[in-house]
């Protein structure tokens, strides 16, 4: 999966415009990044990557790149 595809997955998850995210964005700058997005992210990792993210791990994510790096 390319970085662009991963970013598109995150955009769909956050219900924001396609191609609006880039890897350097800090999560505090991302629209719709809230407690419900965290839950949706945990679900997406479980379903699409068969990976269990703990809430503590999600809290350590600072940028979009931190998430993208785990999407494999």
């Amino acid at each position, binding site marked *: 999966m390319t970085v662009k595809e991963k970013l598109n997955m995150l955009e769909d998850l956050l219900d924001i415009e396609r191609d609006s995210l880039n890897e350097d964005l800090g999560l505090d700058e991302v629209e719709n990044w809230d*407690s*419900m997005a*965290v*839950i*949706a992210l*945990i*679900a997406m990792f*479980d*379903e699409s990557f068969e990976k*269990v*993210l*703990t*809430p503590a791990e*999600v809290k350590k994510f600072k940028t979009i790149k931190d998430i993208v790096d785990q999407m494999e």
Partner: protein
Amino acid sequence: MATGILRDVEIKVIACAVPDNIKKSKDYTEVFGEESVQKFINMTGIKTRHVALDEQCASDLCYVAAKSLMEKLNWEPSSIDALIMITQTPDYAVPATACVLQHRLGLSEDCIAFDINLGCSAYVYGVWQAATIISTQDLNRVLLLVGDTSNFGINPYDSATAMVFGDGGTATALEKTKGKELKYFLKTNGNKFKSIIVPAGHARSRSRINNAPDYDLSMDGSEIFTFAITDVPRSIKSFMKQYDIGVNDVDMYVFHQANLFILKHVSKKLGIPMEKVAVSIDRYGNTSGESIPLTLVDALGEDKSSETIRLFLCGFGVGLSWGGIYLELDKSVCLPMIYTNDYFKEG
């Protein structure tokens, strides 16, 4: 994993009473904003909830359910051997609500009565406990009452909990019946006990008596979610494998109604089509320990056929505590939903 088969016991009737009073999620737009409320509805599925009056306790709702159940079965109060009450919102810190209800229902002095403190897993533990004493002791009839008025102790400005909970009280009649059985599994992980907690109000945090937020329910949504989509399906898979139960051996799955997103995710993970999953959360909210019998009554209460169905019941949450039960039930055991504003004025 604690698993087993309990024999010669049957669920005879299930009744449920909810408060008349309805609250809509959309009515919270002034507090949390329209967008947040819509997102909340999309994720949780919760559109309305039945919320108890200030005077109305879990015991009051359970009492109404128990009365209609005893009437339906023609059970004389003196014929009931045990009353088990499971609630996290008891009438008093002391005594046990089961004792108050033993008196109120006119049960005999020879009736065993006690409370158990569990939430989302309450029904599974309750059925296991009631079935155990029938199966292993010389007792015939047990009344299991499971109810909560979870909206007591909720901070109305906490978006994680304010719109989530519905109130209700249920009564289940279990009786010794030759040839009937149920299979169960039960699990606990106290390591995460802080995930859902009311810190104050009891013995542990007496020194912080003036810190009001400590009296409110605190819930770590993402922690609970991770638990619900990992540990819970793993246990279900292992239980199903142990007893060789396939998806086609179950006609209806009744999960604790935590939130619609969890229900869908867990079902998908287990390969269960949503048509087999009973849903009540959209109209009743997260109804804590009573969610399983409430959802059964919602799904089958108006069904007059006497068809037997195979059910898998699964409760999971506060504790953390979880468990499942596989059993057969006649559809007609569920009475129609009762709506009430009654409460115990002598309390």
